[in-house]
């Protein structure tokens, strides 16, 4: 029994419960922002502590079903980082919507726990429970704005669709269990490596692809994303776009790089088709959006497509490109969503048209949008450029020139729509000339995320080294 493996999970749970218990003892605690500060402090200390944790493939808890390898630790740090940003964004955002802030902050910890369980799971039951823990908490957080019709509807859509998708996923898992008699990754892959393909293996692969593809918003399993992203409270949308998607990716990586590694010839054509669809649909529909959060939802769908190029490349470098891209994607997306949060706090709306004349009202916010959106669009000197370059180069290197060319072409379409948003933001005048009030915590989130976007863009070396080291330890 090795407690250090689960120490982060335990810490997250303890802080979450602490906030709930405080709220029960002191009713005023629930309506104040204290819980949020407590959450941020707790998360920061978790983040710092996580760097002192031993991580290697041998770090397991009780048995090999729960591991803390480099990959898992990397993702956990990513989740904690996202959670810090999300809590800081929520401090002021929540005020008009609910009196009960305390439970909200506590819930982010349970979602975090779910993600961390997913990151460490080396076995399907644990993976599944972690996934559901994450999903349920997100449902709750999505529907948190009770007076808002959109919020409730988004919650219902999210829980029903994710239940349907996990039904499919479970059916696939049951087939996997039936074919191998096991549910742990190593066991299944060792049985698979003996050979013997039956039609049901294909079923299992497809059902897992759709179940995990649902979480990373892979077309055609993406359809929940725009609706849920639009309805959810903005910080939670950011958490969904960054955390939930990254959690989906760790599961995706473990399953497709490890469990199904002998069946590349079966899943690769499917994966390539879906990636092409994702790139096309995500980018094309994003063009036609008028609502900022929906727009970012489609952009996040498109980004899943780019990241999948790394899976398709199916190499160490491909994996490290994925990890690198997830890092910069986190900062760029948090920057963009923090911008949306500031917009909502000040104007109460989040349509693209509401950005008109923002340059005049808040140059600071405009610059944050500029940096974040340019990074998402992949323009130097922001991090997005080097991330895309890395992914595309590796895809071309592994012989997928046409796919990389398609992704590149679609990223041109993407530039068109990001520029459309930036144009709205820079041009025009707004009759409302009151300058924006951006709370300190939100400002800090923006500065850190935009700053990191530039830092990774200008000096990517250390970050690619981290990504490569982790990829090498995994494969």
């Amino acid at each position, binding site marked *: 029994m090795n407690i250090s493996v689960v120490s982060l999970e335990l810490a997250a749970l303890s802080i979450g419960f602490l906030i709930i218990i405080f709220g029960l003892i002191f009713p005023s605690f629930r309506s104040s922002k204290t819980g949020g500060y407590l959450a941020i402090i707790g998360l920061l200390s978790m983040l710092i502590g996580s760097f002192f944790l031993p991580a290697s493939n041998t770090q397991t808890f009780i*048995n090999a079903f*729960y591991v803390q390898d480099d990959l898992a630790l990397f993702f956990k740090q990513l989740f904690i980082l996202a959670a810090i940003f999300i809590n800081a964004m929520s401090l002021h955002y929540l005020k008009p919507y609910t009196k009960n802030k305390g439970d909200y902050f506590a819930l982010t910890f*349970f979602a975090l726990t779910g993600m961390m369980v997913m990151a460490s799971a080396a076995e399907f039951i*644990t993976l599944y429970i972690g996934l*559901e*823990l994450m999903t349920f908490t997100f449902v*709750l957080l999505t*529907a948190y704005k009770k007076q808002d019709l959109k919020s409730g509807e988004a919650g219902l859509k999210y829980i029903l669709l994710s239940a349907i998708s996990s039904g499919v996923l479970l059916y696939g898992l049951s087939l996997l269990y039936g074919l191998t008699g096991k549910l742990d990754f190593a066991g299944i892959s060792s049985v698979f490596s003996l050979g013997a393909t*039956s039609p*049901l293996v294909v079923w299992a692969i497809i059902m897992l692809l759709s179940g995990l593809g649902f979480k990373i918003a892979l077309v055609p399993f993406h359809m929940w994303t725009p609706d849920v992203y639009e309805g959810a409270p903005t910080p939670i949308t950011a958490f969904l776009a960054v955390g939930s998607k990254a959690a989906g990716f760790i599961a995706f990586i473990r399953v497709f790089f490890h469990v199904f590694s002998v069946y590349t010839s079966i899943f690769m054509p499917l994966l390539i088709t879906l990636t092409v669809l994702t790139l096309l649909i995500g980018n094309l529909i994003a063009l036609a959006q008028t609502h900022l959060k929906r727009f970012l939802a489609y952009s996040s769908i498109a980004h899943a497509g780019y990241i999948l190029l790394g899976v398709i490349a199916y190499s160490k470098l491909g994996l490290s490109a994925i990890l690198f891209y997830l890092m910069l994607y986190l900062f760029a997306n948090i920057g963009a969503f923090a911008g949306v949060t500031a917009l909502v706090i000040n104007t109460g709306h989040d349509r693209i048209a509401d950005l008109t004349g923002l340059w005049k009202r808040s140059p600071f916010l405009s610059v944050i949008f500029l940096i974040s959106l340019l990074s998402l669009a992949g323009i130097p000197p922001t991090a997005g450029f080097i991330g895309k370059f890395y992914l595309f180069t590796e895809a071309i290197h592994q012989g997928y020139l046409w796919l990389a060319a398609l992704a590149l072409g679609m990223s041109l379409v993407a530039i068109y729509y990001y520029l459309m948003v930036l144009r709205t933001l820079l041009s025009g005048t707004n009759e409302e000339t009151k300058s924006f009030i951006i709370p300190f915590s939100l400002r800090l989130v923006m500065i850190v995320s935009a700053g990191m976007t530039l830092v990774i863009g200008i000096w990517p070396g250390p970050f690619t080294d981290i990504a490569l080291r982790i990829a090498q330890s995994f494969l």
Partner: protein
Amino acid sequence: MISLFYLFSAILLVFALGTVISTNLIHSALLMMGSFFAVAGLYLLLQADYLAMVQILVYVGAIAILLVFGVMLTRKGSIEESNLPNRYKGIGLLTALGLFGLLARSIYYTRFPAPPIGHPTQSILAIAQAFLLQYFVAFEALGILLLIAILGAILIGRDSK
């Protein structure tokens, strides 16, 4: 054994079909309860006694009852027409049938290897051990998940006015 299997299966499928076809939501709920009993019967045939018990306790005793309550609390209009099909009736049927056809074909063509020789483990003890040893993390996470569900039901379901 054989006739029992067919009996339970027939009850299960007929009741399940009834559930999704009926236009009365109360009938659907009751038929669903019946089908859950049949599932428990199948579990018994598969020598999963504990599971059969859990099935009846949780599915019939909790989930189905919860759903009936849900039906009662959200009543609107005539109960006779409370469970109408939507616009996707035709294509939904087609999809479900197609999926079944494909699945059945795959199952039919799959040759499962001969079962390994082994003695069925004494389920309850083995399950308890697995719960608390190998699958400890999942077990704890499930506990938190149930807690979240309770918390959520209170936070969201509670009348805010």
